[in-house]
């Protein structure tokens, strides 16, 4: 536990569970009669409710985007970007982040209790699409009294949600920031996801997704899935720089135990993930990624899909990202230009691969800051002093 939080941290935060009782019809044809969303908010909503920012999480993310929990030494997953004086300045903005439906961190999902059966949903939890998530997030906005987001922001799968927001609810967001994303997955992307799913579903402890009944988890499968995923999040150069061919023992051991440092690293990451994440959620989230293709409803013409958007877009890509390469972001860019929409695009030079979107690379933060300044000016939040209550106190209050 940290004794003192860094000055630019929002400090101690706590999530809240919000219950929804209006049935939610899903793309798969099924519906959720009632559901819970786990939500965190930072900063203060201003009087005209114009300063709200929605943060959409990526594949394995959740509602804890910034600040610290009681007893934690590590902050939320995007603490580098959210906080007082940071790119998403909590002195100016009211920030909302949530765990998506189907997630495994408190929102309704496979590892949560189905109120109808009293048992975990398991594999019976319906498959979600990005579009479904956006509908559920719109309901969350209604609940919070937010008619229009100043911006919806996300990286990777989160960027896809931001883009879907602009398509589904054109009038409900002013700005849309899509970072390290793609308009749809490539066959290669889907292939990696399928390897991950096979690793999980072939684990002897998977029991067709009913492992909760057996008091076990498909740990090996989940670990392998994460290892494959992790490789795709890094870049060749980044891995070479970080690990090279360094060996733990300094010499060849002629056995199959991990001896290169990259092997140990992946095993450690996989291991850690397999104890913190739910296997059914991993299957569900990768499927949501595979299914995302907003152009498919518009003759496979992305420009047409974006025809009615009114949000101003900021697209950011990273040079060494091969999971969603700059080329994929440029597909979104070209469609937006083609549709005559407002868009800016930048490509950040970084060796970190896809993971770069979570790292405070100076050039990335400079662009992020500049664009957030533009948003602040757009919704007339000129000075940080406009909002009286310090963010830290409000976080405590929750």
């Amino acid at each position, binding site marked *: 536990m940290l004794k003192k939080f860094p000055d630019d941290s929002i400090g101690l935060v706590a999530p809240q569970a919000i219950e929804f009782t209006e049935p939610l019809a899903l793309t798969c044809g099924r519906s959720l009669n009632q559901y819970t969303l786990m939500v965190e908010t930072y900063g203060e909503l201003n009087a005209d409710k114009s300063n709200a920012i929605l943060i959409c999480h990526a594949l394995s993310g959740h509602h804890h985007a910034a600040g610290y929990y009681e007893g934690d030494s590590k902050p939320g997953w995007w603490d580098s970007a959210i906080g007082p004086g940071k790119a998403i300045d909590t002195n100016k903005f009211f920030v909302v982040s949530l765990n998506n439906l189907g997630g495994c961190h408190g929102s309704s999902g496979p590892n949560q209790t189905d109120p109808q059966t009293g048992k975990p949903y398991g594999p019976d939890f319906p498959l979600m699409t990005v579009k479904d998530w956006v509908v559920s997030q719109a309901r969350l906005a209604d609940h919070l009294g937010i008619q229009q987001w100043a911006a919806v922001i996300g990286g990777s799968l989160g960027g896809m949600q931001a883009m879907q927001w602009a398509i589904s609810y054109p009038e409900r967001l002013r700005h849309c920031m899509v970072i390290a994303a793609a308009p749809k997955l490539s066959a290669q992307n889907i292939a990696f996801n399928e390897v991950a799913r096979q690793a999980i579903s072939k684990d002897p402890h998977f029991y067709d997704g009913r492992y909760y009944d057996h008091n076990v988890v498909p740990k090996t499968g989940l670990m392998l899935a994460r290892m494959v995923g992790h490789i795709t999040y890094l870049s060749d150069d980044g891995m070479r720089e970080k690990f090279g061919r360094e060996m733990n023992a300094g010499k060849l051991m002629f056995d199959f135990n991990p001896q290169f440092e990259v092997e140990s690293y992946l095993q450690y990451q996989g291991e850690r993930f397999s104890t913190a994440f739910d296997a059914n959620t991993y299957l569900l989230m990768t499927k949501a990624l595979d299914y995302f293709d907003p152009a498919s409803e518009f003759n496979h013409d992305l420009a047409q899909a974006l025809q009615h958007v009114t949000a101003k877009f900021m697209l950011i890509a990273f040079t060494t990202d091969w999971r969603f390469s700059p080329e994929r972001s440029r597909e979104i860019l*070209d469609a937006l230009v083609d549709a005559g929409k407002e*868009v800016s*695009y*930048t490509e950040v030079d970084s060796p970190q691969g896809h993971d770069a979107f979570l790292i405070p690379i100076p050039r990335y933060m400079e662009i992020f800051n500049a664009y957030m300044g533009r948003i602040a000016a757009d919704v007339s939040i000129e000075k940080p002093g406009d909002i009286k209550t310090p963010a830290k106190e409000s976080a405590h209050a929750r």
Partner: protein
Amino acid sequence: MRADQEIIHEWIKPAARVLDLGCGDGKLLRHLMDNKQVRGYGIENNHDHITACIKNNVNVIEKDIDKGLASIKDNSFDSVIMTQALQVMHRPDLIVDEMLRIGKECIVTFPNFGHWRARSYLGFRGHMPVSKFLSYSWYDTPNIHFCTFKDFEQLCVQKNIHILNRTVVDNEHQHRWWTNLWPNMLGEIAIYRITR
């Protein structure tokens, strides 16, 4: 407002869709957005300029113009502008083709190497011209394709490019009546409005 930008301003139709290649900090686009209600994008690859554009509330796209503009559709802009960047392009002729493919009209400005000062610098001193306006040495200059008014107009003839307007200003971007008497000798900056 610089005189060359004032001239460009006059040539742009209200509410036009504009693409500004090598847009710098976005000042010209900002001015056109504020005063002519144009909609548009700047294209830049200089990081500081990109940041400045975003701060100026100008839509900017990071792109190396030399790598082409193939992803932009034919005739999708009313005007494509390139101010003071033609001379840094690897293939100015191909860029002009691209500009005319994308835009219904194009505006190009470039330094005139046929200006008397440049001529006398080279003629009398035997050195590549260096001035306050073009302050680089031959080895570190980003300007790799200098041309004169005559050269540019010859290119237009070869490519069947129609010159709608031509004007010249001096290095302080002032428009002086006498420069038009002998533009290739007296004009320091050329401003052309061209179309197919």
